[in-house]
């Protein structure tokens, strides 16, 4: 069996819908994002619907080929791609990537978005982590960063839309220091179709337990779990254990206790609250979380007790911990 070939991206210089492609920026399961410029030489990000598991395209060709048996799924994915465009088009918020245009060409569709210059939160975490200080980010940085993100997320939820794949790699920090949420991958939902059920794809560590269940009821609380996991990653430098692992044996409290006295009790508690395994035990709305996160009281730090330190050390020996 040969490995399935990914569809080839459009080569630099190709013009689609009046935009000239400069280079490929990223490729995911849903398609390809290019850096391109419009007729007035302004830079844009151009997202091409090209699900890698359903479409084929030989290098140098423009039009993707979809085998007949994959047509229904391809069309279903297209519908989700439209949903994403439709929702983003209604949202105008500095923390949410904005859509500039939407068009059809090469028998597929394209979404034109603002091109942002900067790096993802993931890049920042990795860089900061490698400095090996006791803090990955300062607490004030974390609080203001997530305050900004939550403002955007609140608008998203107001438009009856869930992000469902919030993770540091999808949070962009622009060069002028603004946090912007990327990749509203409603289009991904279809691509993990299994039997008759369609589930969103998920990123381990950031996906709430209900994302793993067929009957899981998804809601704002699902995105809030991911926000909690992102805050965790900003403090710890690593993503948390994934939900199935946590259901088996939950070490979240333990690993958060390593951060006591480094970050305030309140921030640690908020993280734990967001990441409750029971969806009902989490903040039920972004607003509830914002309120808690922006509560400016004096920060309390609780040192670990002797027995707690001992327990942690034992745990470190047992697991050959990285911390």
């Amino acid at each position, binding site marked *: 069996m040969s490995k399935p070939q990914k569809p080839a991206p459009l080569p630099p210089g190709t013009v689609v819908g009046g935009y000239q492609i400069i280079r490929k920026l990223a490729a995911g399961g849903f398609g390809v994002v290019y850096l391109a410029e419009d007729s007035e030489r302004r830079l844009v990000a151009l997202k091409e619907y090209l699900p890698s598991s359903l479409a084929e395209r030989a290098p140098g060709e423009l039009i993707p080929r979809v085998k007949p048996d994959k047509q229904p799924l391809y069309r279903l994915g297209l519908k989700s791609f439209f949903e994403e465009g439709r929702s983003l088009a209604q949202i105008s918020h500095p923390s949410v990537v904005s859509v500039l245009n939407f068009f059809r060409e090469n028998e597929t*569709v394209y979404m034109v978005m603002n091109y942002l210059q900067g790096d993802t939160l993931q890049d920042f975490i990795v860089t900061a982590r490698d400095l090996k200080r006791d803090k990955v980010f300062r607490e004030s940085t974390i609080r203001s960063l997530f305050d900004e993100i939550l403002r955007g997320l609140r608008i998203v939820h107001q438009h009856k839309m869930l992000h469902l794949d919030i993770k540091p790699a999808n949070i962009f920090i622009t060069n002028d220091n603004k946090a912007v949420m990327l990749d509203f991958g409603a289009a991904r939902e279809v691509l993990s179709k299994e039997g008759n059920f369609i589930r969103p794809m998920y990123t381990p560590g950031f996906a709430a337990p209900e994302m793993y269940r067929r009957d899981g*009821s998804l809601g704002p609380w699902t995105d809030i779990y991911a926000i909690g996991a992102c805050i965790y990653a900003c403090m710890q430098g690593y993503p948390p254990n994934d939900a199935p692992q946590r259901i088996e044996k939950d070490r979240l409290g333990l690993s958060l206790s390593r951060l006591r006295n480094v970050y305030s009790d309140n921030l640690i508690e908020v993280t734990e609250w967001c990441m409750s395994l029971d969806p009902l035990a989490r903040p039920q709305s972004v607003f509830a979380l914002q309120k808690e996160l922006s509560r400016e009281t004096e920060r309390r730090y609780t040192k670990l007790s002797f027995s707690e330190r001992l327990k942690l050390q034992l745990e470190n020996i047992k697991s050959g911990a990285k911390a």
Partner: protein
Amino acid sequence: MRFSVYQISRRGGREKNEDRMGYCYTRDSGLFALADGMGGHPEGEVASQMSLQMLAAQFQAEARTQLKDPKRFLNEGILAGHHQLLRYAVEHALLDTPRTTVVACVLQGREAWWAHCGDSRLYLVRGNRLIARTRDHSYSELQETLNGIVPLGDKVNRNVLFTCLGSPGKPVIDLVGPVQMQPGDRVMLCSDGLWGVVDDETITRELAAAPLGESVPELVELALRTAGDKSDNVTVIAVEWEAAEDEDTLAGIETAALGDDVFESTIQASGPGLDEELLDDDEIERSIREINEAIRRTAQKRG
């Protein structure tokens, strides 16, 4: 609203299970439905699935958080499934349309409404009495209903249905309701795989005797045993309304705490079979136009 629900579907001796069942609910309204895709016509399982999907999708759209008019909803939701089947047959160039029966029940407030087309049935049991049951759209039940006043003659195959979803004529839909519900009332929807071999008295007795979690599987087992190797698909979905809270044999569902936007469903609202035809070239062009209009409007607001 509080209810407990139990559903089960067994293939029996058939090659495929063409029965489908499911339920969905918001804080203030619940929909329970069952469909039996018909043999002798193509893709029975597509037909039953599609009719439930249409109902569920329409329920999700209209139940905010109550249905304004449950009777109208049932009628239109069932008809929408019928039209969907006709479209499906045309677009897939089928020589014959997939067909299905359907029975659906809405519980809302303290009242119930139900509707059916074909010979999938609804039973309402209060205490140990059968309060109501739907009349099949078959010639034999029709004759019983007419009490022999109108003779049908001997040549009519009594088990043949005179209506269903997907047939060329407009389906006959019987609508009932509102019916006042009392705590502990049991509503059971089933395919002919059950009632064909288990009589009404037994069904009533079993439903009255034990919690749904015991009586429903018991009834289904009885049907399968009685029919033996040739058993039809047997499918049952049963609801106990305002189930006693201490009943721990079943996961009861309490909807009072649900938010305005919550919609729960065991029926997958969309599938490739459904969406494929919703998204033709015109639809794609229209979607793109709409998105660009939204972009323009948002840009104007931004100023």
